[in-house]
């Protein structure tokens, strides 16, 4: 063979070898181990800013304070406060109630005192005024307060208010815009030896037409039980809740609006911080989910007449994918995957993922934080207030999380943390049971560019423009009012439901069908963290499209309304049993 032929044979061989190697390297199933994966998160596919901080000009000047200047490093200081959004005066605008927190008084700085709580009336046009004194609520802080839960517990058409805290809680009955402290005769007795209530949720649990109350309690900390704990760098810091005994949670059954009886059979103790009442198994009865801090979360399935069976572990919602309990704080639920069932979202402590549990039906949930893109934000966050909100009004619930550390000196060095805004990437026609979220915080607005000691967050349409706004409470930092300024392409319809009994129909399921698209929303009790959100629901509508809304009331009654009856780009009130909607506001 000639030299030239030899060379030709050699190069051909090398070429073939190279070609085959490359094909093997790129053929399916032969991905090289070092291939660069595609980037699943941080999709800034949103034209921001989504939210504008309008606090400064609003008249809403308020700060929750925790008394940490006494330097006790008490675990009490770490919880913070919540937010309640409700229309206390029936003017159709959501007002804002803010617990004030507390401090330590006396010569030894060990007497518990409350900072004043405040009710701000919504004047419209993003203006608010402090009306605490005018409406009969205490001017001074009656106790070290945490959360607030609003509901018309006596079915008189006026929304009442529960405030939780250390040492006691308070129930204020709304008498046509004026509040009366009815705690003393309410029957809201402590279920255990001491009282430390955090979150609360209202909902009819025994189908008698009266909203019952689930109050979660935390741990048996007091100054008599106040160990010294070291944090990072061996400096004194807040103790872990694991060092204390959990307190029993309390289920109070409403006795026709006059008072409550404690009925805690089957209700376990736990260091509870979040609670949600909703029909999680689709049987028409309100169930209860409790977010506990460092122990299993509880899922109480309502077996009827307020008899509950706790199945959190079995259902797959007690902890993470390995069954490890987290430091759970906030909770919400929504049909985020198009299945028509309520999936759960729980915020957790640093070193853990915030947990998304997709509802598979039959009281089974799948831990889905990673497949949904939630876990991509990592594990440095300590999450509190949270909510499924459709901020872009595309019919798919998005997510907001308020974050902020609990330690004075966390190992990461940063107490304050940034909030997170997730956008759902679901589109009409996507298969049910799947959802993916993208972190769009970068487009969230200025609030998301700075860090905060985030705690409670409540969600509601404060200006009735069909876009969901947010109010966030921080510890030792002013409350923030975030106005939704996103320009959605869709139209909308807002629904305010008025039940026969209870008037606040927690458990009602609303299904809006519009062509191929179905949106399912429900009225929930509790949710987020120590907070109470707008009871109204907003549905996205394609411009000009026909739609049909079906309401399944807690009583079992089902009603349907079409777009001709309801209209669009407005709020309407639907009274149970009435064939036509009423204008909003009503009552």
């Amino acid at each position, binding site marked *: 063979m000639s030299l030239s032929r030899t060379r030709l044979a050699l190069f051909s061989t090398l070429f073939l070898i190279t070609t085959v190697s490359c094909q093997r390297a790129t053929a399916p199933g032969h991905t090289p*181990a070092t291939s660069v*994966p595609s980037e699943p998160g941080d999709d800034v596919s949103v034209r921001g800013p989504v939210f504008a901080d309008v606090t400064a000009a609003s008249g809403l000047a308020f700060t929750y304070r925790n008394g940490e200047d006494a330097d006790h490093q008490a675990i009490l200081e770490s919880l913070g406060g919540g937010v309640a959004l409700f229309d206390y005066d029936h003017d159709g605008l959501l007002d804002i109630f803010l617990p004030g927190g507390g401090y330590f008084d006396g010569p030894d700085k060990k007497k518990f005192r409350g900072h004043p709580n405040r009710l701000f009336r919504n004047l419209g046009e993003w203006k608010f005024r402090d009306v605490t004194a005018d409406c009969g609520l205490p001017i001074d802080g009656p106790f070290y307060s945490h959360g607030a839960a609003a509901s018309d517990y006596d079915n008189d058409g006026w929304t009442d208010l529960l405030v939780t805290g250390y040492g006691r809680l308070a129930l204020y009955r709304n008498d046509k815009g004026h509040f009366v402290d009815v705690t003393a005769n309410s029957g809201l007795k402590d279920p255990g030896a001491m009282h430390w209530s955090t979150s609360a949720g209202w909902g009819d649990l025994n189908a008698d037409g009266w909203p019952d109350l689930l109050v979660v309690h935390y741990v048996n900390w007091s100054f008599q039980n106040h160990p010294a704990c070291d944090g990072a760098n061996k400096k004194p810091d807040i103790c872990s809740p694991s060092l204390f005994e959990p307190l029993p949670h309390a289920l109070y059954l409403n006795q026709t609006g006059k008072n409550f009886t404690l009925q805690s059979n089957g209700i376990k103790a736990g260091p509870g911080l979040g609670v949600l009442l909703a029909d999680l198994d689709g049987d028409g009865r309100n169930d209860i989910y409790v977010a506990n801090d460092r122990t299993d979360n509880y899922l109480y399935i309502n077996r009827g007449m307020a008899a509950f069976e706790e199945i959190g*572990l079995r259902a797959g919602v007690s902890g993470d994918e*390995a069954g490890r309990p987290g430091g759970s704080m906030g909770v919400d639920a929504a049909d985020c995957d198009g299945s028509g069932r309520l999936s759960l979202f729980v915020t957790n402590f640093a070193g853990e993922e915030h947990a998304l549990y997709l509802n598979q039906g039959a009281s089974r949930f799948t831990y889905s934080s990673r497949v949904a893109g939630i876990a991509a934000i990592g*594990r440095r966050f300590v999450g509190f207030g949270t909510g499924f909100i459709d901020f872009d009004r595309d019919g798919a619930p998005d997510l907001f999380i308020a974050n902020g550390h609990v330690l004075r000196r966390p190992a990461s060095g940063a107490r304050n943390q940034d909030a997170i805004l997730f956008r759902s990437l679901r589109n009409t026609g996507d298969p049910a049971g799947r959802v993916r979220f993208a972190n769009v915080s970068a487009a969230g607005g200025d609030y998301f560019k700075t860090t905060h000691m985030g705690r409670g967050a409540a969600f509601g349409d404060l200006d009735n423009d069909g876009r969901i706004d947010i109010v966030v409470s921080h510890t030792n930092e002013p409350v923030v009012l975030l106005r939704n300024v996103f320009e959605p392409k869709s139209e909308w319809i807002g629904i305010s439901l008025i039940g026969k009994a209870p008037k606040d129909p927690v458990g009602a399921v609303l299904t809006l069908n519009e062509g191929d698209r179905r949106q399912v929303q429900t009225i929930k009790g509790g949710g987020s963290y120590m907070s109470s959100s707008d009871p109204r629901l907003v549905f996205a509508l394609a411009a000009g499209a026909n739609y049909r809304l079906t309401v399944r009331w807690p009583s079992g009654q089902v009603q349907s309304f079409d777009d001709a009856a309801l209209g669009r780009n407005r709020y309407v009130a639907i009274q149970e049993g009435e064939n036509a909607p009423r204008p909003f506001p009503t009552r």
Partner: protein
Amino acid sequence: METANRAPRPFIKRRSFRFVAAALVLIGIGSAIVAYTVRANRAAERSRAQADQAIERLEFSKAIEHLRNYLAERPASPDVHFLLARTLRRDGQFDECANHLEECKRLGYDPEAVRREMMLLELQRSGARGRSTDELIAMVRDPKQSPAPDPVLLETLYRADFVMRNLDRAALWLHIWLEHYPNDWMPHLWRGEIHEKLLRHDRAQADFAQVLESRPDQPQALRGLGQIALSQRTDYVEAESYFRRSLAVAPRHPDARLGLAMCRYGRGDLNDARQLAQGVLDENYTHIGAAMLLGTIEAESGNQDEALRWLRVAEKGGANPQAVCYQLAQVFRRTGQTADADRYERKFTELRDTQRAIDAATRGAQREPNNADRQAEVGRLCLAVGQSDLAAQWFLKALTIDPNHRSSHAALADYFARQTDPRLAGRAEFHRKKASGP
């Protein structure tokens, strides 16, 4: 006349031709010999150079192969016999090491060096058993040997103790090494591994980072940093960068591929994570970490049959019992196999209760660090949840407080008996005798 001038030429030509031909043949043979010798020398030198590089990278198997290739060309090289012997010892191949040391003696290598290497061989082979820490420290710090501790001796002691699971003492030799030679990267690497095993992540991170100062592509340190970034901070970006750098140097390493898979999984890229984990399993079907990861991915993706398949592999391989029991319970429940779901849920609950007891017992042991019973109790509970390596450390700690603590000896006897490394069988016997009393 024309023919008179031609007469001598044919004869001269024939003779010249033969001479030239013979010369050519001789030259050819000589050239071949020279070429062969040169080639052999070059091959030998190449093998030697490759061996040196492999030793530098701590790739002892490759180094041994290259040194054997060298000796195939130059069998009478005492230097290389010695180097091979040392490398074999470092790699734990003690019998062959001894053979090459004998050959060194026969070839007249420095007898003192051979004697010392034989001493190191026996020290490492025996796991430094029967020698107290004080005795060994005295040996290390003996000024008659050298003004500063000999790193070769320190490494030998580290290897001896590491294999025998005396991790704290193994770390001690590395501490001493670094006291005198703080810029050496190998003790940092090995100490980092020990810190990782003992869950001292911050210290492990510091050591691995120090390795990269002088060896920026050291794959083990890169993997270690990746694991810490993943497990301690869940910093997927940082962890991924370390794993990729490690894979650039050692492309098939399963731990780095699995680490990368976990990063992809954490970031929500399940398809990529699945492929990477599957790739590890294609080469090792029973890789526990990959099986567990793939099982988890399939469970989260709704592929229950595949999830069950891989979780079973993980269970059989000894994956974290709590995690695998919980996952299996969930998968069985989703597939309607209620009895199995209940069984695994009960097992999970029992394991978790034991883990809580471990946490409480650990706090008790930390409050009473000189109480051997407290340390052993933690070990006993760790055994109950399948954390046998961690359990062994607690029992060894108990023995540092009370060398005759019989329950610790009994537990360690069982532990070492279950290890596959034949060198540890003697250790099991030692503890069994101690457990049965004086």
